């Protein structure tokens, strides 16, 4: 029929496709062999560029071929005139751009592009910057391109200010962009340095405008995590400086304990810790409270006999750390059994969590807007979590009740992460208990009936003598408990404890109450053998009491034990 169009059938189409595929495969195979043969023979000419180019255009992840090309370029660099080279490099760049269009996420291609520009006689980095912007427009999360951009920015010496504006633009188009937010967090401190020169922090005024920006994102889409994470960075504080936070001396124990702000390993030469007694250096052996703690916030040394003289009116102890840059001094007067010198948690506002020491008014207004958002979005977990952090930054004790309430909301809205919230809550409760104890200037900490699932900040409790952990949900007494070197009485009844690995080498520990726990094997009690003063142990209601011969085995393990309650 006139004008009628005949179409190929599906079989014909499939056959034709198959034919084309085979043809392509054959071409690929022969070209690859040719490339390899050339490389083996050491022929580094422009034909090699053409051949490898044909392959790489189809498969840009063929790393060997990129290497081959680089070898050719290095070789040609010696042979060609600068003009010829320049055209060659320019050709390579446009070839790379076509490769990137095919696969914008190829490691090989981006890396080769950087290499080419670094070896090019006159690289135009500005063009590269535009290329990056274009690719980030297509896919703002292409981290290959982000990496490349950082290289370009460095080479082209682009000012952080311009880059900050660039991130602003990207965030404007789509703020669900971790890369952009994170980039801002690195740029802000460069553009607006902190007035107190704290590393990694930005000027307060700049932070205020950032709060506004991020709040817009939070209110627009409170379920987007990226903005919340950036918000937490904004509210964050500078890292605490590394320091020696406490020096403690016990006369009867003939020992000295040094605490640090961060876990360290003083056995390493760079962190060497030197002790001076009455002005004279004294060689001692430092050990961590638990053999498994290689890095520890607490280091202990046994003083050689007769270092402390009971008749002497006072002894001066002093430690030098980091080549004497950091020092701490403590005096043990006559008649005193112990002495210490420390930074207290309350003075340092240690538990105003990871949040800043910025003007409280700012934090207060941030808290207000978050609360407002929570009223609109009662089920938003990010909001609830941030409210908790803000309240802790402002006044951890004052907001305790509200905090508990927020945790209830969190657990209800995100039941999958109940365990995480329980651990976090445990941490905050312990912080509050430490604060309360310090305000009361006592050495007794009561953590009973707090629903604790986890113990932390134990390094802050190294002076505590009595600890009550009764009626919680603890499953173990972790190794960090060994930092509580002054502990005498530990009540841990009505928990789910199976493991006592933290009760190691606690010289003053006398009484342990472990009623109604889950200790089932005699070997679980072995750590207690290293606590020399232990005289009372309550194991009532533990499965272990059912084990035959348990008492005789226990008395073998703990010969000095006077009272065993079962």
């Amino acid at each position: 029929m006139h004008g009628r169009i005949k179409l190929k059938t599906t079989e014909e189409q499939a056959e034709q496709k198959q034919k084309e595929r085979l043809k392509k495969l054959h071409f690929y195979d022969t070209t690859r062999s040719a490339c390899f043969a050339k490389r083996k023979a050491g022929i580094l000419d422009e034909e090699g560029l053409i051949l490898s180019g044909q392959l790489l255009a189809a498969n840009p992840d063929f790393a060997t071929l990129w290497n081959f090309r680089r070898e050719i370029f290095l070789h040609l660099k010696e042979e060609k005139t600068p003009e010829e080279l320049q055209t060659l490099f320019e050709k390579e760049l446009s070839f790379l751009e076509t490769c990137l269009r095919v696969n914008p996420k190829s490691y090989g291609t981006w890396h080769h592009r950087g290499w080419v520009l670094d070896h090019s006689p006159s690289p135009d980095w500005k063009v590269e910057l535009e290329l990056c912007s274009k690719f980030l427009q297509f896919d703002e999360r292409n981290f290959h391109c982000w990496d490349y951009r950082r290289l370009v920015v460095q080479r082209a010496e682009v000012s952080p200010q311009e880059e900050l504006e660039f991130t602003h633009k990207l965030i404007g188009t789509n703020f669900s962009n971790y890369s952009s937010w994170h980039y801002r967090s690195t740029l802000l401190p460069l553009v607006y340095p902190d007035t107190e020169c704290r590393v990694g922090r930005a000027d307060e005024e700049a932070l205020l405008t950032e709060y506004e920006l991020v709040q817009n994102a939070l209110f627009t889409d409170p379920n987007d995590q990226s903005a919340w994470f950036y918000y937490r960075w904004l509210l964050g504080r500078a890292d605490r400086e590394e320091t020696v936070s406490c020096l403690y001396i016990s006369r009867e124990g003939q020992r000295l304990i040094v605490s640090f702000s961060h876990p360290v390993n003083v056995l390493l030469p760079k962190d060497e810790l030197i002790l001076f007694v009455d002005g004279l250096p004294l060689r001692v052996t430092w050990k961590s409270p638990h053999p498994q703690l290689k890095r520890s916030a607490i280091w202990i040394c046994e003083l050689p006999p007769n270092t402390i003289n009971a008749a002497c009116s006072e002894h001066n102890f002093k430690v030098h750390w980091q080549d004497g840059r950091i020092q701490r001094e403590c005096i043990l007067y006559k008649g005193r059994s112990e002495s210490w010198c420390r930074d207290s948690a309350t003075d340092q506002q240690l538990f105003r969590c990871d949040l800043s020491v910025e003007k409280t008014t700012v934090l207060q207004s941030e808290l207000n807007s978050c609360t407002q958002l929570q009223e609109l979005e009662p089920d938003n977990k990010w909001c609830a979590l941030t409210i908790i952090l803000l309240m802790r930054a402002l006044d951890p004790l004052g907001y305790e009740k509200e905090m508990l309430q927020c945790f209830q909301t969190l657990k209800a809205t995100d039941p999958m992460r109940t365990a995480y919230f329980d651990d976090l809550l445990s941490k905050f409760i312990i912080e509050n208990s430490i604060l309360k104890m310090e305000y009361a200037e006592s050495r007794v900490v009561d953590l009973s009936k707090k629903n604790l699932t986890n113990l932390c900040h134990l390094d802050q409790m190294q002076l505590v003598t009595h600890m009550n952990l009764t009626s919680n949900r603890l499953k173990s007494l972790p190794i960090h408990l060994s930092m509580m070197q002054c502990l005498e009485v530990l009540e841990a009844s009505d928990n789910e404890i199976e493991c006592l690995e933290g009760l190691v080498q606690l010289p003053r520990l006398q009484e342990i109450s472990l009623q109604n726990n889950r200790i089932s094997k005699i070997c679980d009690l072995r750590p207690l053998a290293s606590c020399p003063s232990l005289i009372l142990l309550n194991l009532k209601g533990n499965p272990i009491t059912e084990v035959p011969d348990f008492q005789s085995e226990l008395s073998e393990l703990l010969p000095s034990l006077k009272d065993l309650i079962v």
Partner: protein
Amino acid sequence: KINTNILPKKIKCIFFKKSFIYNFSHFRQAYYGGNWASFTFSGLLAWIEENKVIFLSDCLEITEWMNDIKEGEEILLLNSSDKSIMNVEVFNFKENDLFLTVDLVEDLKEQGSSQRKDDLFLTVAAAESFESGIDKSPDMYVNEHPSEALEHNDVCTSSQKKNPELFLDGKKYVNVCKTSVAETRKTITYSQIIRESRRFNIDLVSKLLYSRGSLVDLLIKSNVSRYAEFKNVNRILTYQNGSVEQVPCSRADVFGSKQLTVVEKRMLMKFLSFCIEYEQHPEEYAGNFKERTFSDFLKTKNLTTNLANFILHSIAMVLDTDLTTEGLRATQHFLQSLGRYGNTPFLFPLYGLGEIPQCFCRMCAVFGGIYCLRHGIRCLVVDKETRSCFFFFFYRLISRAVLITDRSLLKADSEQLISLVTVPPLKNGQPAVRIIELCSSSMTCMQGTCEVEAERPNVLWALYFNMPDFSSVERSSYDLPNNVYVCCGPDSGLGNDCSIQQAEHIFHQMFPDEEFCPPAPNPEDIVYDGDGAPPEESLFKEHEESEVGDGEERTLDTKHLVTSTTNEAEDAQESVKEIPSE
């Protein structure tokens, strides 16, 4: 009255040919698309003249071919002229070829305040900078301003009365602005527009394509999309509290908006997220709201007046009187189209909307469709038994305006923006005004220059006219022979769904077993007889060659496909008989 040349028809055409059904389309006019057409500026002037002429009689000399009428057949005479365009008025704000400045915003206000019941439908266009040696970045905006009224026939008179008033308004502002013109040397002249005429097309209808609307789907499915290019609409604007503002509709807009408080942002996002899946939350709107209006529903949603207005007029774009579910559906449609091609839900075809019917015609022509321009159907020859009387119906009028202005309604970094502006009704019950502001890179307005630094755009040239909206007229009200189908022409909606639906419906009535607009085959899948050059390409060449010879109206746009020659008139009549009989 039978409307013959409309979009749905084009879509149908394609298909006939593909299914090897004989297809023949004819147009009374010398251009494609009927009331859907786009014109060059001089073409538009010709169109204006044509539509100003009042046809006194429709007497036809039918005697010549009366002899061909067989026994048992009867002639059903048709109007020889298209009288669907009414009340055409042109305002040329110029003096000695120099344009005077007329304040568009004031003009707009005046129109609103004059109690007119129309929807003003403005299309304003911004132009690309143009080398003029002026150091200020030169810009010029050509604005189309089709104004749209949703009126019943009887209200029509008021709109007719209105035009002189408007003219007075125009005069007034001409006077006001004269001095400023004298001070600032204007560089756009009327003759310049005439000279540049072929560089841009002006549409008769003012519509946009929803990115997930049925027209876009159809363009993709049928492969007709290969003949057209589109630009994304960049901004959704509204007129509120005395100023033009950007409507935050996407997530990025809401985030970046400076006018909204954070709480408003949250409320807006919350409401919009609900609208996307409103069917899943019937408890929110069922019951009480089923029978109540969308604007009442919005009042219960804790939205500020600002937000409620944004949603009602600029996002849902429904009337105050529309019901809740209608508003929710419209909002959902808007939101679903967001983000597919850009930050707003709309696309606009380069070279104007007149391109769309032409694209379908072109595809049809590729597969052998024949077009005949400048030949209307004079009459239908019908079997006596099915002959029945004429019809009577009411229809609404769409008021349109095309305005050419010198700058955008709302200043922005870029001049190459397409914006949709909605002006909420001044009083409840009145329709809203919709404006589409176009720019020169959409090839729908002139590149130009203007050095006046003013806050508000000036109107340089304006055209007003009424077009009937037959979309709500039932086919049954026509009482036609059963193998004659009626298309309604452009409707007043912003999208094209109504027309596509109608085209598909008519097509299925004609060919119940055929697929509507099946995908056109890829050129490589076509088997050619012999080993000559692929006929498809040569086909195009042929057309393009034949085109060059025949048009005095040829524009830069070479996409037009004209295949008809004048001596095909005889065929035209015969073909009428052949059109589908089932």
